[in-house]
């Protein structure tokens, strides 16, 4: 079949020599399944074809198309590269295919195509502070970026995570956050919407953490992911404090069928989220001319 597998005979080879799986899904094995939060599971997986596994590199911020055999394909954001972390996806069961995915067990197989999309602009932000702001499962797309930033810790100034969820049960990646925290200079601020028995952390909304964390505005970039209400209030706070619209970065979601810029389902105005995105600056998002 016509996936590249390093022979570079395919029309879709990249000059970097690392070519995406474009047409035919590659089979992966589900090694382990972890319950993350209500309705959210993390699937750890590995490629059956070890040559593919060796070639498979994901830039933080990209996405893959994942096939649940018999049910269909869905786009899922940003698993980290196998070299950095175990290859995994975190998925909330919301639709037909993701529900089918949640019914699977270790040893079952999935199909993977990708990676697609532009990824986070790490080259351009060397030397700056990074502020991660996430609401609920908005931490999923930011996770690989945090892992990347911590691996290249010396390239950046302060690294801050502001994270909020509805309740403590909805907080994702708890064990990972503990590990990240041990990293010198990773500052974490976590809040939940309402007080809870046994919770001695912050209570309130994420944008209220900006002051608590004493977030630097100059020479900073903010990566913001979460539900629209949270997104808007956080961005409002940053803009009020004088942060530039180019320094606020987010990822967009759309229905995706192909991942390679052909089916057009993910078009927003003049942009295609699958090939031009999914990472955009707030200035770009503002000028797309369509509802987000």
């Amino acid at each position, binding site marked *: 079949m016509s996936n590249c597998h390093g022979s570079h005979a395919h029309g879709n080879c990249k000059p970097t020599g690392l070519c995406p799986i474009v047409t035919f899904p590659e*089979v992966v094995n589900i090694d382990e399944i972890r319950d993350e939060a209500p309705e959210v599971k993390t699937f750890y997986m590995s490629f059956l074809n070890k040559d593919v596994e060796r070639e498979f590199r994901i830039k933080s911020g990209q996405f893959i198309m994942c096939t649940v055999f018999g049910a269909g394909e869905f786009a899922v954001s940003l698993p980290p590269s196998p070299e950095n972390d175990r290859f995994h996806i975190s998925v909330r069961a919301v639709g037909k295919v993701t529900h089918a995915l949640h019914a699977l067990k270790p040893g079952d197989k999935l199909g993977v195509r990708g990676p697609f999309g532009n990824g986070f602009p790490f080259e351009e932000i060397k030397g700056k502070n990074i502020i991660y702001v996430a609401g609920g499962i908005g931490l999923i797309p930011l996770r690989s970026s945090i892992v990347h930033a911590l691996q290249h810790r010396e390239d950046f100034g302060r690294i801050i995570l502001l994270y909020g969820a509805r309740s403590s049960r909805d907080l994702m990646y708890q064990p990972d956050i503990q590990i990240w925290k041990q990293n010198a200079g990773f500052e974490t601020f976590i809040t939940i919407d309402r007080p809870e028995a046994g919770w001695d952390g912050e209570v309130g909304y994420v944008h209220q953490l900006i002051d608590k964390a004493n977030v630097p505005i100059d020479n900073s970039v903010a990566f913001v992911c979460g539900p629209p209400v949270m997104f808007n209030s956080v961005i409002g706070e940053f803009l009020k404090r004088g942060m530039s619209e180019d320094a606020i970065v987010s990822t967009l*979601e759309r229905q995706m069928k192909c991942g390679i810029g052909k089916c057009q389902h993910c078009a927003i105005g003049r942009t295609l989220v699958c090939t031009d995105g999914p990472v955009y600056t707030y200035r770009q998002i503002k000028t797309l001319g369509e509802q987000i």
Partner: protein
Amino acid sequence: MSMYILSSHEIKQLAEELRASHDVYGPQVDPQTQQVFFDQLGDVDALNLEAPIPSMPVKEILFPQMEQVLKYKYDAETQNVEMAKPYVEKPKVLFGLRPCDLSGIQVLDRFFLGQEFVDDVYLTHRRQCLLISNTCLNPFPQCFCVCTHSGPDADEGYDLDLTKLQDGYLVKVGSEKGQALADAHDWKPAQAHHLSEQKAVVDRCIDLFPEMATDNKAWVARVMNRITTGFVKSETWEYIGDQCFECGACSFVCPTCSCFNVEDARMCDGECERLRTHDSCSFEGYARMAGDHNPRQPVEDRRNKRFFCKLSYPQSKKYLRPGCVGCGRCQWVCPGDIGLPNVVQYIRREITE
């Protein structure tokens, strides 16, 4: 490139000969309904080069309405998966393409093959494909290719181009493939007067276009500018959206509409197929995501998407020409009277009023 003059008989012979090694498609008139279809030729006598523009665009052959793009079998017991590629490459000839349809194929080529990724399915159908275009001597009722630079004669993209003249068919060679075909035959070279005759025939055809079509000519460019810069009033889009029945017909008949949907379906023998089907941005569920968030709920948001695709600079940059090739099919089929020429009229009215 070289030019030849062939009799009608020689043209038929060429089609017959190509049939030995290729699937030959051409315009045919259905005897019962008098509808024109661009279908595979079972018999070269059915090839009708004088037939009006086919009801369905030729994109059907390269980008079928419904197609299997993957077949697989997953055994939940043994957790084993087998996959197969169901589409195959076949040499084809598209014989007697109307110039607008030829331009439509160029648009699809640039979109499917010329962007960041190459679409493997389209490439497989397109790879061994000989394109023979056919100059229009008369415009058909809805045609307005004069406004979009895609007719009534073809100026690029063909392997061979035919024009019916007094002495027979003028055959222009447009590619190496076409030249190789000419070299293999003993065709009579054309004279200079044939070329001037062709020019006269094309000029005569252009004169025959209805006034509305030619009148719109300069307006297509101005409307493109408006749509690109976002200066079309939202009331105008609402007016346009109000007339849409969300039937999708305009997308299905358009030679340059290329949106598709992908669905996995179980077949009866336990195998699954991944189907790629034509889709239309007019449908309500077009942009709906899992969890029922629909960023394009109102119909006018979806209608202006279609006209943004056909008439805007960012999209034209991908196609290297306007997305509309002026075939007029959408005008023909739209039950709501918002075919592309009408939309140009509405926006034009907004500008002038």
